[in-house]
């Protein structure tokens, strides 16, 4: 136990096939303990094509250690790993800057890497990132501190791993007990056996059974060593209910005031694992907790480039590719967002024939606006294919979404672009924010919810125009990134071109003919983006137009160039 536990040579290889190939091909598990804590290391090789291995290992981990070579800085691979760790909900990242001995323990090198990574990590969702300078070769700062980096005040790696607080990562608030099976005692009594996914259950608690929504009371909790008054996640228990309510495998017990979602529609990020790519509409089998259902991918919202973290249009996902999908299930299955509840938001898609794993998925919180009442019955689809429309109109439908402060030039560019496209023989139509406010959005105000609705309605109309084969040009302040994301989801990422009219607030105010800024500052207009409410500029728009600096024609030119580059204006025959 006293030896150096992090012998990295122990962490590599294992199988003969790998020895022959000279690479590690799969996740291996290693065990070591210190007097303070027991560790299981999931060793995942980092080759590009093995995103699935990273995801597999990450699904079992509380913490990820990313090794950065001090000489090379933050590599593409490090970014990918950090992204996947964050995607899989790992809350603790350690960036171990290795080979510090080879850069003379130079503090500037370390700080540069810290800055570079921090800038990148701002877009990730792992809240806890720790930076550590070390040398695996000399062992300094691995187990013991040395004298080479007096400027480093933190603990060595092992001490950090021993003391990171992971217990509070658990969800003890929302009771979820997915039932694995029903056990029948010799006296005929029945108990629902399962592992508590989250929350705490006590004898006497009122519980609701999903999906039946029947309610009962807990009369007995049998733990591994006998009767318990209460039990918590992740204990394995068998719970008896009053009046023998009907319970079966796949049901979930929760408290009546705090139920998981129960629906046939699930939005999820998918990590595709199988060699055969995702096919929309193909019947898959989905598993969440102990529930099973048939499922199809009804829409693929977008793919994610794991190196740049940018959204990319996607019609399918191949092995090691990641994307956001809308799933339609054959029956309503209880679930929660992954970010809130790992066990209730983690899903896999399997092949119904041989049960091999096709994809791992993380359930996303669905926007209430997207979940408004839906009509019953199947949706009829058009007898005219998008390809026919493309051939007919000589263009691929696209939505140009112009976002920016008031008076940043959105409407001028929109109408100018429409003129230019039609002159060039294309078919385009403008959806201008002000006009919409006089039409389909006239019932809406300017509070956050109403603004979201205005964005959604514009997006829905743009989608209809696109479905008809037209180019839609939307000019709308749309100040919130989340709202623009919704718009992107509605329109479909592949058709969505985000253009930021990026003039400064001063420039906008200076050319504000309608004096809206003056009125906003007098408080006459309620919350006003850029003045009394936030405007969130897009992180990575498809095009940023410095409209304070360039003229109208130049702005239109640049938009047209983007559309030409995408091939929207001259579709492949």
């Amino acid at each position, binding site marked *: *136990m006293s*030896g150096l536990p992090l012998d990295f040579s122990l962490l590599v290889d*294992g*199988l*003969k*096939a790998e*020895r022959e190939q000279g690479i590690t*091909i*799969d*996740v*291996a*598990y*290693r*065990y070591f*303990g210190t007097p303070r804590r*027991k560790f299981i290391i999931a060793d995942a090789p980092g080759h590009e094509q093995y995103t*699935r291995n990273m*995801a*597999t290992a990450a*699904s*079992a981990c509380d913490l990820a250690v990313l090794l950065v070579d001090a000489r090379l800085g933050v590599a593409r691979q490090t970014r990918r790993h950090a992204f996947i760790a964050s995607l899989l909900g790992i809350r603790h990242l350690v960036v171990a800057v290795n080979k510090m001995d080879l850069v003379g323990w130079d503090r500037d090198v370390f700080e540069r890497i810290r800055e570079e990574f921090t800038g990148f990590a701002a877009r990730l969702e792992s809240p806890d990132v720790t930076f550590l300078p070390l040398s695996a070769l000399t062992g300094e700062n691995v187990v013991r501190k040395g004298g080479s980096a007096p400027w480093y005040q933190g603990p060595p790696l092992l001490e950090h791993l021993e003391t990171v607080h992971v*217990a509070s990562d*658990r969800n*003890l608030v929302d009771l979820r007990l997915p039932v*694995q*099976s029903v*056990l*029948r*005692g*010799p*006296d005929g009594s029945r*108990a629902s*056996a*399962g*592992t508590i996914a989250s929350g*705490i259950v006590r004898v006497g608690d009122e519980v609701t059974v999903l999906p039946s929504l029947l309610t009962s009371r807990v009369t007995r909790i*049998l733990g*591994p060593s006998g009767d318990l008054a*209460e039990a*918590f996640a*992740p*204990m*394995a228990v*068998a719970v008896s209910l009053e009046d023998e309510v009907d319970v079966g*495998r796949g049901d979930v017990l929760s408290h009546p005031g705090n139920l998981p979602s129960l629906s046939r529609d699930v939005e999820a990020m998918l990590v595709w694992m199988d060699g055969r790519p995702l096919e929309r509409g193909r019947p898959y089998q989905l*598993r*969440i907790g*102990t529930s099973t259902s048939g499922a199809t991918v009804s829409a693929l919202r977008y793919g994610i480039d794991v190196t740049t973290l940018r959204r990319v249009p996607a019609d399918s996902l191949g092995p090691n590719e990641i994307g956001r999908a809308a799933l339609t299930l054959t029956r309503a299955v209880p679930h929660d967002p992954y970010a809130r509840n*790992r*066990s209730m938001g*983690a*899903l*896999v898609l*399997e092949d119904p*024939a*041989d*049960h*091999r*794993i096709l994809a*791992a998925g993380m359930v996303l919180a669905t926007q209430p606006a997207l979940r408004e009442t839906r009509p019953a019955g199947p949706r009829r689809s058009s007898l005219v294919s998008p390809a026919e429309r493309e051939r007919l109109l000589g263009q691929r439908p696209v939505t140009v979404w112009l976002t920016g402060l008031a008076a940043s030039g959105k409407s001028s560019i929109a109408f100018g672009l429409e003129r230019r496209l039609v002159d060039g023989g294309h078919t385009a139509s403008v959806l201008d924010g002000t006009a919409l406010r006089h039409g389909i959005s006239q019932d809406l105000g300017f509070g956050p919810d109403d603004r979201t609705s205005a964005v959604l309605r514009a997006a829905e109309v743009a989608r209809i125009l696109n479905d008809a084969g037209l180019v839609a040009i939307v000019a709308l302040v749309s100040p919130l990134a989340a709202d623009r994301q919704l718009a992107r989801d509605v329109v479909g990422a592949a058709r969505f071109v985000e253009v930021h009219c990026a003039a400064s607030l001063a420039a906008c105010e200076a050319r504000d003919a309608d004096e809206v800024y003056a009125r906003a500052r007098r408080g006459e207009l309620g919350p006003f983006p850029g003045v009394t409410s936030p405007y969130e500029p897009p992180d990575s728009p498809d095009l940023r137009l410095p409209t304070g600096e360039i003229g109208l024609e130049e702005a239109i030119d640049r938009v047209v160039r983007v559309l030409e580059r995408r091939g929207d204006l001259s579709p492949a025959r």
Partner: protein
Amino acid sequence: MTSYVLDTLAALEAESIHILREAAAQARSPVLLYSIGKDSSVLLHLARKAFAPAPLPFPLLHVDTTWKFREMISFRDRTAKELDLRLLVHTSARGVAEGIHPVEHGAQHYTRVMKTEALKEALDLHRFDVAIGGARRDEEMSRAKERVFSVRDRHHQWDPRRQRPELWNLWSARAGEGESVRVFPLSSWTELDVWLYILVEKIPVVPLYFAAPRPVVERGGTLLMLDDDRLGLLPGEAPETRMVRFRTLGCWPLTGAVESTAASVEEVVLELVGAHRSERQGRLIDHDESGSMELKKREGYF
């Protein structure tokens, strides 16, 4: 004041119970592979907890090579009787007919016929689709990559390239037509965890795990205990009585004893805290070829 945190053993126990319940709930016809060793004792103990107050939803299967220590067989029969278990015992008819001997025919051939082939025969005979075993990932290097739910083809063989990614605890005990699944609920346990659990839960194990004066002969650096007179001594070999115990139990002519004075569970734990060597080093069958454990796994050895 409850802290709502499970200690290591309680967390391992909960995970194993979850795995056992998944295996039983998803399988058409499950079986527990019972090898009489300490891991099997722990596995059986956990299975009884997992399904209480109901009886075990599967039988136990022991593949008897006819070369197990006599103390193991009597422990097996006593356990089955006391706990009122359904115990199936299978021995290779071909092996018995051919009189296959672990030393004279070589460990490799013997293991293939008496263990691997016999296990496959028994699984086919009873048409089990899920076999639950007590293997741990820390036992040997190639087992570090073994899945908790491991798919075997129609010949019960294991192909590292065909294994499924394991995501969260969403294991599947279902496989394709003709395929079967091995399930290892103790995957995350270390040898020390097993002994600590035996200590805390007072789980009975075969007395051979504890040091006692036993008749042994030293052969090729290994201490072999003479359980009966079938082994035959080589020229120059003389049995002597030494204070020994076993870290792992298999077929007696192939299982080396270690010199030890640890005569109780507490003393075994103390001895282990200072130990560095792999526990399977006493198993001669692992040493006959490079990557031998992996080869055996591919062939269908448990």
